[in-house]
Each structure stands twice: as C-alpha cells, then as structure tokens.
C-alpha cells in the first residue's frame, strides 16, 4: 500500500515537474480528439435533427388515402391492432364533416371541419383529455382564436340539411375541453368524438340520431362504412411497409415516403462516411497516443530504474507510466471537450441560422463525452502498460547505465 501511495505521488510530482512536456502530450492528444468530437457532433447533430424532425412531426408519419374508399369497422380495427400503427381513426365524407360553430364572444359563425379523435392521437399529443361524448370538443388554435374561446367555454354547434324539401337545422352545446397547439394545423378544426362525426353524417344523410333526438329515416340494416381515415405509423421507419401493405389491398395512398427515404439514405451515407473517417481517425489517434506514451516510458527508463533501485517492485513501476498516461488522457480529453464545446457554440451560433435550422447543427450527448473518455483511457492505459512492462522487464542496472 505504501508503494502504491508513493507511486501515485511520485508519478504526479514528475508529471507536474515536467509540465512543459506533459502539456505537449495533452495538446497532442486533444488535437486529435477534438476534431473527431466536432466531426461526430456535426454528424450526430445534422442527422438527428433531420430524423427528429421527421419522427416528432406526426405529419411525416401520416398515411393519407387518396380519394374515397369503403373501409368498415373490422378493417379499421385490424389495422389498429398492427404493431406498426400508432393511431387510426375513420373519417366521414368531407361535406358531411362540416359544422357551424358560434360563441357568445364572436360575431361570426365559423364553418369548421370535424375530425374524429381518440386517446393516443399524435396530433393532440400532450393534451390531457380527449372528447368522450357528443358534447366535448377540442378546437384547433385557429378556430379557438376566431371564436375567441378558451378551455372551459361552451359553444353552440349547428348542422343543417335539406330534408323532404325543407331546410332543417339542429343545435348542440359543446364544451371546449382543450385547444390544440398552433403547429398542429392552420385550418379551423373541431376534434370530436367519433360518434359525433358519425351523427353529423347521419343527420346530413337524412337519417335519425336517436341519442341526440334528431329525427329522420331509420334504417339500421345499412352497414357503416367510411370513405377515408386518418392513420399514423408508429415511426418513420414503418411508413414504407405500411404504404406497401395498404397498396397491396388496393388502397390509393399518399405518404412522405420519398422524404423519409432521402433522410434515411442521408443518414446511412453520412454514417458510412463518418465511420470511415472516425475509424481512420481513431486508428491514428491510438497510434499517436500509443507512440507518444511509449516514447515517454522510454524517456523515463533511468528514473524508473532508480525507483527499482530504491526498492519499488516491478508491478508498481508499471503503474508509474500508466498513471501518467491516465493524467494525459484525462486532461487531454478535458481540453478536447472544451475545444469541442467552443466549436459547437460557434457552429450553432453562426451556421445554424444560415441554414434556417431551429435546432442545433452540432451537438453531443453526455454519454458521447463519456465514451470518448473511456476510449481515450483504454488506449492510453493499454499503450502505457505495454511500454511500462517493457521498462519493468529491463534490469535496473541497464536503465541506470542509459545516461
């Protein structure tokens, strides 16, 4: 134990005594590590910004049918149960999915698009509640603004139709339970429970809605089919397969497949380029660090021999260069991190706005810094152990006669 304590003390004393040489080793390490970190920061920043934008924006995961189809409940349920589907909700005909909204605080009556929603709707992610019955609504930002209402307000909704030659209008009280974020849509939209959307279509078709007391024809034998749906894949990586499967079933589909493919291929290509550069860089880094630490051990042969002469064991002698390499690795890494952070700031401050990016162009996660440290330490310790064992194997008398 006394030997270990003494070796730690002596290796540090020597390291700080030779601060000029130690600084050179630290700078040499940092000058190889820092550019690698910047390169990785850029690769990670650019690609993950693009991927995140695609992943986080549900629009990119939306799969839209083109034109009208005939989709029944069973078909929609089957799709809902797929692992790669995050959310699906049917849509009725566009003309039947329009409702007039009026509030006490706004003069105009707002013609608003009705969209069915349910728990897990990516468009309404982050909102605490979803419409549970006929009388609850979440308004889009634009609709809420135009009606001048906020959460908790009540609004009047009305639907009209021509029925048996007469114009009819029904009214319904809706509670505004929340407002969607402005980024969700710029349109006037009322997110409602699917039942209300269906009721609206039934009413427009001249049929009765018992639950709301709306009279009309009643024919329960007609199977309910929807012309369209709102579907979101679980991730951008699922979009391509889902589109292919749906097209196989004859559906005409539109999705951001080409954009997703572009980002994925950019990611792959950048990754390949990065890893080629990183591997060459890491190899160079390992060799330059290894060589300089090896050289350092050789330079220290005489002093290491003196330590053996005064009675340090060989194993403890190996610790001397290993510890010094750890100091170099730690401090070199620290300098590299500081250089990287300075460049990260400069790149994000000057370059990102030019490219109209909201997000950082260059960034690394804490674990990336830690990985860089681990890699540096492993290389440093390995190189020092190889050199140190060599030094410890030399008979002390040979080392003493070196100079």
């Amino acid at each position: 134990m006394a030997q270990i304590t003494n070796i730690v003390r002596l290796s540090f004393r020597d390291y700080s005594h030779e601060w000029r040489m130690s600084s050179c080793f630290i700078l040499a390490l940092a000058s190889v590590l820092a550019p690698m970190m910047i390169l990785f920061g850029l690769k990670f920043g650019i690609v993950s910004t693009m991927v995140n934008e695609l992943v986080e924006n549900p629009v990119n995961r939306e799969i839209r049918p083109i034109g009208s189809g005939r989709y029944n409940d069973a078909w929609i349920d089957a799709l809902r149960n797929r692992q790669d589907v995050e959310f699906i909700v049917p849509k009725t005909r566009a003309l039947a999915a329009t409702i007039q909204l009026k509030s006490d605080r706004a003069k105009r009556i707002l013609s608003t698009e009705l969209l069915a929603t349910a728990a897990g709707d990516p468009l309404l992610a982050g909102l605490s509640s979803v419409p549970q019955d006929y009388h609850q609504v979440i308004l889009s930002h634009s609709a809420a603004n135009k009606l001048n209402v906020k959460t908790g307000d009540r609004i009047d909704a009305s639907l009209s139709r021509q029925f048996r030659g007469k114009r009819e209008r029904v009214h319904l009280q809706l509670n505004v339970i929340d407002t969607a974020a402005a980024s969700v849509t710029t349109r006037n939209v009322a997110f409602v429970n699917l039942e209300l959307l269906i009721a609206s279509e039934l009413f427009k078709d001249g049929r009765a809605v018992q639950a709301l007391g709306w009279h009309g024809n009643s024919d329960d034998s007609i199977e309910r089919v929807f012309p369209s749906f709102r579907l979101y894949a679980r991730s951008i990586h699922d979009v391509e397969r889902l589109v292919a499967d749906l097209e196989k079933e004859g559906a005409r589909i539109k999705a951001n497949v080409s954009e997703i493919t572009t980002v994925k291929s950019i990611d792959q290509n950048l990754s390949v380029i990065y890893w080629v550069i990183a591997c060459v860089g890491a190899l160079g880094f390992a060799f330059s660090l290894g060589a300089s630490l090896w050289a350092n051990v050789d330079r220290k042969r005489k002093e290491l021999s003196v330590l053996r002469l005064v009675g340090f064991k060989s194993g403890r002698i190996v610790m001397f260069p290993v510890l010094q390499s750890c100091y170099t690795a730690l401090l070199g890494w620290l300098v590299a991190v500081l250089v990287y952070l300075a460049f990260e700031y400069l790149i994000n401050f000057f370059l990102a706005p030019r490219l109209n990016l909201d997000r950082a162009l260059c960034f690394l996660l804490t674990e990336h810094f830690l990985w860089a440290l681990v890699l540096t330490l492993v290389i440093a310790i390995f190189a020092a152990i190889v050199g140190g064992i060599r030094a410890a194997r030399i008979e002390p008398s040979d080392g003493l006669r070196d100079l």
Partner: protein
Amino acid sequence: MSVVYSLKNVVKERLIDGVGFRLVVPKIQISAQENIALIGHSGCGKSTLLDMLALILRPDQGDEFNLHPMDGDSYDIAGIWQRDKQGKLSQIRKQHVGYVMQSGGLLPYLTVRENIELPRKLLKLPDDDSIISISRVLGIERQLDKLPGLLSAGERQRAAFARALSHRPSILIADEPTSALDPISAQKIMAVVMEVIRGLKITLITASHDWAHVYKMELRTLKQEAKAVEDGKIYQSRFSD
C-alpha cells in the same frame, strides 16, 4: 566478523555474436563492516560487479552467491535470480542496500529532502530527525528544500549519499561516486562518508579513483586482472580476494 557477501565462480557476460566482455569472480568474501575498493581501469567490470552485488544485475552463472546482510538474515541470491523472484530482490535491496550512482541518480522532480526520505517512506520508517542529522553531517542541511537541479555536482553527490544512508542500510555500494568532482571536493566528501559509515558500522563497497589511495590503510582492494581469451574475442576480467 560475519561474512556479508560470499561469491564463488560467479560469471557475467556481455557478448554479441561471441565477442565482448566477461567478468569472472572465482571467489570473493566480504565481511561485515569491511570497506572494499574496486580499483581498475575503465571497462574492467567494476560497475558490473557492483551492480551484481547491489542485486540489480542478474549473474549468468554462479556456484555460490550468498548474502548475509545482518545476523539471522541469509539469502541465496543466485537461487532468487534463477527463480526470477524480482519482488524478493526488491525487498532485500530496499531493506539492506544503499546505492550511490556516478551521476547521483536523484529524482529531479523531488526536493532533496523528499529524495532522502524516499527509502524511509518505502520501509514505513517513522519521521524522526534522521534526515536532518544525516544532512547536517553531509553538509547539505540548507539544501533540503531545493530541487536537485539547483545543486552543485558536489552537493548532489552528498545528497545521493544521504539518500543511500537515510534508511540505515547495512551495505553501501557506491559506483565511482566522486568521478565528476574535482579531487579536493572528492576527498572532502569521502572523508565525511568514511566517518559516517564507521559510525553506522556499514559495509562499504565502492569503485574508486585516486581518493582511494588516501584511505588505502582503511580499504581492502580486490585483486583485478584482465586478459583477452578465446582467440582475442573475449576480454575477460577477474576480481578476487
């Protein structure tokens, strides 16, 4: 007096393609508190023999290489080298041997005091006034807090002696410790050292220059002869009692 070193037919070779140098020790016995001087021209193997005696150089052959640093302790050094027990050799060295190199061999990053303290720290000896007293005797008391680089050559050698003696070893080995000094300084330092080792009852083995003649009454000189052997390919040097 008990025998400290007992060597019989010990050989060390430094050959490249059968050409080079061979040191042969047919028989040497060194008693406790004896003062031995190895005198000979440059290249005759003085340092090689000293390094073997200091347990930092492996002999190639040896019928006998025993060390009895003090009563009760006895080590078969040839056997320890054969079994490559480096840790054991370190232990013996640390405890019983003090070594002074030609160039001092002080660690440049430690102060003189820390250099002198180092062998004591390794042996976990208590911090007493022994550092101060040995420094005072050797005349480097005022240099204790300086780095070796700031000392004169003479002061560095005095500090090297202080380090070699600080843990009270029973054997002091010095390899031409005053070769870098002028004759007057060399004699001054050696006068002090001889006084110290007499006081501490230490066995001294040293390779020497002119000053040895001054102390020839107190130093036993080993017989040394050298000749070319094996068709002149090997320069063979012998040290014996």
